[in-house]
């Protein structure tokens, strides 16, 4: 090979492991030292440039790019480096550097092929797109995609310029605007990779593809959708879809649409320059900063915790929608689950709920049907207490009544082994009180999943007074193993997420009683960036549940909470929300409409005031939580609000929002509201000064 590589280098030429037939194909392996994954940074990119210079000397007939990491190809650009970029010009420069280096993969004069096994995302996927060919492994870890928009930016190493030519404009826009990651099956279907083989044959397949490209270079296909008129229509539809989804608060997807279209209309140099400029600009936007902050938090949350052994048994008590969801994600992640209920009738719907969670979890798997069947068969249902002996974790998700839960927990403690972790999915009872019935409360912990379990990425880990540190670590490890972000919170009413939601929902009823309309309040919250307004959320949760929680809060914090008369009246009238098809809205076919007779707007409250009243009470509650130690840090508030209640991610979470707006200013506004609307707005003493 051309050059012997130095000790610390990331990119090395490796001799072919394939033997004679592949002579002339050079394998360029990326194996970043001292890092669990390969990242594209200024250092690794410039080293790649040197290697590509060597490749251009004419000795080789083709280059295959491969990874030295076991389970990943290239995990993208270095997010820490992205976070450190502090000016538009710096961003443009970094982007252009990456473009220049990676672009050479397509201008070497010899075929280049990316051999993808494991994560190939962001900058990694862009590198692959610059190659002449791409082959991928069937592994479940193989994922290809462009998640940059989730960080508020666009692909900056030429991804938006190469992708449309490879997969066509509609698919390119779809990938770039959603950040969706594709498994090998989907990647092959849309033409993002040329072929998919088992990892054992990956290098041989890459070499074969390289020789094939040597004989007949792939030419970009003519596509109907790339005709000028069609192209314009496609982009218009995509823009409208993006706007409908994000309401215009996220600039990055719109930029992605524009850039993808540009790739078909201007010469490459100009397209790339536009891309670099867009990246530089977006990177400095508050949206990107908020999203990057959230990303940083999720990275931290995924570390820590002691992971459960593989193929563990998870016991689930209660075959409701929560229990079935937990069982479903557990088996989809390779564990076994056993669900117990007292009623046979509950098991059928539970099996269906779990099966949906499994299908969702395995939809990108290469052998999807077999994987789904195997996952389903790791799930068993029972009405009896046997079969939990070997469980590593048992989660209780039965009806929210202390006596029932005590009985269930006592029964299960007698049925499990000594090392089994016991958890409750309660949302309204105290973990400490629940633990009182147990002989070994040190292994008992709250593990609060959110509904719907397969979709909601947050789990609150709630230690009771007797819970051991080891139990908390194991519970967090389980949350991570099930694909969730754990956040440790104190055993206080509502824990963290519901505690913060409560003033927000309570204030929504105050607004309603004060003359605002249902739709008006929801619209104000949605304009702020919430995925759904408070009343829509209440209808989904169920008003009976809301009333129960509200009464708990009114008892715990009598000065600040009361149960709204409107809520009580609705529940008494049997209007419980979506499940009874009538709540604050009427749910029928089509869109839900506000129910008649309920708070038709009398137009007395300004939009800005609705927003302040909803979110400032939430902010004040967050200040209290932090002061009382309900959560460990302000970062936890951000993580929990974004992941647990859908607080607008572009604001970076509730606490970051407070910081951005200025605590002094918000506090003053709260004082003002307290003067006009009552003591519930009076800010607590713990408000920060800065």
């Amino acid at each position, binding site marked *: 090979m051309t050059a012997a590589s130095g000790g610390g280098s990331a990119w090395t030429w490796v001799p072919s492991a394939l033997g004679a037939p592949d002579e002339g194909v050079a394998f360029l392996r990326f194996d970043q030292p001292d890092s669990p994954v390969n990242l594209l940074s200024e250092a690794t990119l410039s080293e790649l440039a040197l290697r590509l210079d060597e490749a251009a000397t004419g000795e080789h007939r083709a280059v295959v790019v491969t990874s030295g990491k076991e389970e990943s190809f290239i995990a993208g650009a270095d997010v820490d480096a992205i976070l450190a970029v502090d000016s538009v010009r710096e961003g443009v420069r970094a982007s252009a550097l990456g473009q220049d280096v990676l672009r050479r993969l397509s201008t070497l004069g010899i075929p280049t092929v990316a051999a993808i096994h494991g994560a190939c995302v962001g900058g990694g996927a862009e590198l692959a797109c610059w190659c002449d060919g791409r082959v991928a492994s069937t592994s479940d870890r193989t994922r290809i995609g462009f998640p940059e928009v989730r960080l508020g930016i666009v692909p900056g190493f030429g991804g938006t310029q190469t992708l449309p030519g490879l997969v066509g404009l509609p698919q390119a826009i779809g990938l770039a605007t959603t950040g969706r990651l594709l498994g090998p099956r989907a990647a092959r279907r849309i033409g993002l990779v040329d072929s998919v083989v088992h990892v054992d044959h990956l290098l041989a397949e890459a070499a074969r593809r390289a020789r094939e490209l040597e004989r007949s270079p792939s030419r970009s296909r003519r596509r109907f959708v790339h005709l000028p008129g069609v192209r314009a229509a496609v982009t218009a539809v995509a823009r409208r879809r993006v706007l409908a989804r994000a309401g215009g608060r996220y600039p990055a997807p719109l930029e992605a649409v524009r850039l993808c279209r540009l790739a078909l209309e201007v010469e490459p140099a100009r397209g790339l320059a536009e891309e670099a400029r867009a990246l530089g600009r977006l990177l400095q936007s508050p949206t990107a900063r908020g999203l990057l902050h959230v990303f940083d938090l999720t990275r931290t949350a995924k570390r820590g915790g002691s992971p459960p052994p593989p193929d563990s048994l998870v016991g689930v008590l209660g075959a409701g929608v929560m229990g079935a969801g937990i069982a479903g994600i557990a088996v989809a992640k390779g564990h076994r689950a056993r669900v117990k209920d007292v009623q046979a009738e509950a098991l*059928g719907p539970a099996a269906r709920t779990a099966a949906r969670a499994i299908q969702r979890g395995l939809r990108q798997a290469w052998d999807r049907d077999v994987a789904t069947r195997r996952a389903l068969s790791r799930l068993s249902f029972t009405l*009896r207490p046997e079969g939990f002996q070997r469980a590593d974790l048992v989660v209780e998700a039965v009806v929210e009544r202390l006596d029932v839960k005590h009985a269930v927990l006592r029964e299960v403690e007698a049925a499990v082994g000594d090392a089994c972790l016991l958890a409750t999915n309660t949302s309204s009872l105290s973990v400490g009180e629940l633990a009182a019935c147990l002989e070994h409360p040190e292994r008992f912990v709250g593990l609060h999943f959110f509904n719907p379990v397969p979709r909601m990425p947050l789990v609150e880990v709630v230690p009771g007074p007797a819970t051991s540190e080891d139990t908390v670590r194991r519970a967090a490890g389980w949350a991570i193993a099930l694909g969730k972000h754990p956040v440790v919170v104190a055993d206080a009413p509502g824990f963290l997420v519901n505690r913060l939601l409560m003033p927000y929902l309570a204030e929504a009823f105050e607004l309603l009683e004060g003359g605002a309309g249902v739709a008006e309040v929801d619209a104000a919250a949605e304009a702020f960036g919430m995925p759904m307004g408070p009343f829509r959320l209440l209808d989904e949760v169920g008003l009976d549940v809301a009333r129960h929680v509200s009464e708990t809060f009114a008892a715990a914090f009598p000065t600040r909470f009361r149960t709204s008369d409107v809520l009580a009246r609705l529940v008494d009238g049997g209007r419980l929300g979506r499940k009874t098809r009538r709540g604050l809205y009427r749910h029928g076919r089509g869109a839900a409409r506000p129910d008649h007779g309920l708070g038709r707007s009398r137009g007395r409250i300004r939009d800005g005031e609705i927003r302040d009243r909803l979110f400032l009470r939430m902010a004040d509650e967050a200040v209290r939580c932090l002061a009382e130690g309900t959560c460990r840090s302000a970062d936890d508030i951000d993580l929990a609000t974004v992941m647990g209640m859908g607080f607008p991610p572009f604001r970076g979470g509730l606490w970051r929002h407070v910081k951005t707006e200025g605590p002094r200013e918000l506090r003053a506004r709260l004082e003002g509201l307290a003067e006009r609307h009552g003591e519930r707005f009076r800010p607590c003493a713990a408000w920060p000064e800065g």
Partner: protein
Amino acid sequence: MTPAGGRKKTARRRSTPAKGSVREAVVVGGCRTPFGRAGGVLEPLAAHDLGRLAMVEALARCAVDPGEVDHVVMGCAGMPSDAANPARVAALLGGLPQRVPAYTVQRNCASGMEAVAQAELLIRSGRADVVLCGGMESMSRYPAEFPRSFRLKVASLLRAKTPWARLGVLAGFRPADLRPEWGLQKGLSDPSCGLNMGETAEVLARELGISREEQDAFALRSHERAVAASDRLAEEIVPVPVADTGRVLGRDDAVRPEQSLEQLARLRPAFDRRHGSVTAGNACGITDGACALVVAERGWAERHAARRRGAPQPLARVAAWSVAGVDPRRMGLGPARALPMALAEASWSLADVDLLEINEAFAAQVLAVLRVLEEGDLLQRHAGLPEALGAVDPSRLNVNGGAIALGHPVGVSGARLVLTLALEMRRRGVARGAATLCVGGGQGMAVLLEAP
């Protein structure tokens, strides 16, 4: 010298009983799915899915780890075409370790009982301590086939080289070529004698003079007993949720609580429309289901019960078993020959048997067996049937109802009879029980159980 911990545990040592004694097999426990009417709630599940559910639950109820099982033997009469060895497929899906071998047995209606017999053999011979055995059947999923003529024509179409030749073959296709042949229908017919199972029951009814009224009364009794026993039967059942549909089967759904003699009398004969007496009402129903039992070496089971938290005491010892051949045209008489053989092996008399389960393939067939047991071979046609053994006390026979009410998933019933019998013996605290069934093709099989 090998360090103490260095020895690899490659083969597990079988527990050896004290010198001179025999390794005995005991039923530790078991469980079954409800039996569901074919084409009903259980239709989405293949035989091996049902088997998997019963197996997982049987192990759980016996507090046996999957890794403790030495062998898996499951009966299945109608093999699923997508699982050549359904016992192995069910075992792997059920989380049994890959090193645990599995085989499927087919002795037609006795397949599930044959699995129990195989377990006893494996244990007695010292080849296994713990065997997971039973039966599984999805009669809903029996295939429908194209006629042979269709297959031949398709084959020649594929061989035809020129368009003209192809056209010629195509012209030879007839609508009749597309008429499906039902695996269920074919499976319930005996090609050696040309009779289907119902027709063999008609033979017995005719020859032994068993009236329609007797048959209907017996059928009604089966339903009544099954209804009365529904809480007891629930103890042996694990409910089956079906993920595809969100439905659940918690009870045997072929049992008719409202059955009356008048309704039974109104049914038309199913096999001999003009002169017959066997109807859908006094024959067993077509159902899906599975049953699994943990059968273990007695010493192993006793130690297991003593050491493992939640482990049950063994239910019953397998005292003897037998299989016998009879005239295929009178296959229903199989128990009349197999039961005496088993009793002789155990040196029991019929009067020693406290509880008797005779599978109710047809009311006429059970009544025929009872008559032959009581009076000997009336017509002297079946050289080899033993002398009269005595009358069976109806209060000891099929006390929780039988296949006429519950249904007869062919490969499962043999295992279900053993499970139901063992549990009822424990409930009543009686010492001896027998389960026996007739087998399509002219066989009979019996298993004797004794309190451990």
